[in-house]
């Protein structure tokens, strides 16, 4: 679903600096931050109770700082970060977290979102003796990779399709 949302929003949102557009079930706000707000709006449609993900939204929004780095931002030749990678990372997080929280009366902490290698994004949680690192690659055709472990020596690792939400990863992290 996130992939369809991304394609639709890209077609429509660049025409004006500020626009209001009201199709069947959602409207655009402002261009800046508009993508994020609209993805959240669409994901939340029909959910009762509505999960509080304001801290997640804030973390995602703050990660936009990486888009301003530019190439060689670390004085060691690292490449900069693109809007496309930020959108994929945002959609992945919102897919996973909102789907995970459906029907649950719990919350989940916001992850750290930091610069990854080669234009990728790193998303990192550390909760209750468990850690989980997910890397969203710059190449939109490449799979994301993840690694997690806990104090007991249990390990989860592999690759995943960020366009489809699967709850089991966050279930493992929070159990």
């Amino acid at each position: 679903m996130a992939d369809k949302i991304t394609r639709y929003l890209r077609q429509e949102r660049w025409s004006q600096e500020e626009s209001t557009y009201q199709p069947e079930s959602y409207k655009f706000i402002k261009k800046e931050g508009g993508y994020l707000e609209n993805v959240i709006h669409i994901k939340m449609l029909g959910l009762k109770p509505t999960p509080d993900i304001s801290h997640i939204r804030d973390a995602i929004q703050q990660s936009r700082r990486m888009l301003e780095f530019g190439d060689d931002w670390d004085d060691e030749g690292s490449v900069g970060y693109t809007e496309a990678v930020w959108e994929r990372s945002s959609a992945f997080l919102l897919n996973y977290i909102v789907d995970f929280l459906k029907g649950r009366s719990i919350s989940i902490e916001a992850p750290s979102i930091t610069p990854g290698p080669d234009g990728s994004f790193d998303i990192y949680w550390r909760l209750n003796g468990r850690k989980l690192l997910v890397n969203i690659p710059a190449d939109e055709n490449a799979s994301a990779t993840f690694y997690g472990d806990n104090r007991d020596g249990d390990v989860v690792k592999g690759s995943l399709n960020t366009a489809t939400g699967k709850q089991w990863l966050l279930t493992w992290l929070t159990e």
Partner: protein
Amino acid sequence: MAANVANGIGPNWPVEDIPDEDRLYMWAHRNYIDPKTGDFGPGMFRIRSGEDGMSTAWSKYSTAEQLHRRAKKPQDNAIIVMRVGEVRAIPNQVVRHKPLPDHQAHSEIEGEKDTEARAKYLEIYQIAIPLLEAAQ
């Protein structure tokens, strides 16, 4: 040649084995920090384009301060430190002494820095020189 050696420059420093109990220092750029937590993210554990391994400085021949002064912009870098034995415990990581003519301490950590490796590096590093001190 004597003057060069005294200045830390040698044409062919001998390659040595680095024992597990020694330490490695590494630059950590401020942009890798998560503003929310103040912690460094795992992205700083990477191999630069064109190099065979992640560059570090062996504690036998360098202090943290000496490595810090070598940075292009010391004010933008902290120095982290890792125990060699703990680095070697991360899958596929190989520590090699690779001295340069003007940098006898230069060493590299070879091996892919995949998601698993980077997650494990986050567990073993410590701050040797924090950013606040580096900015002074």
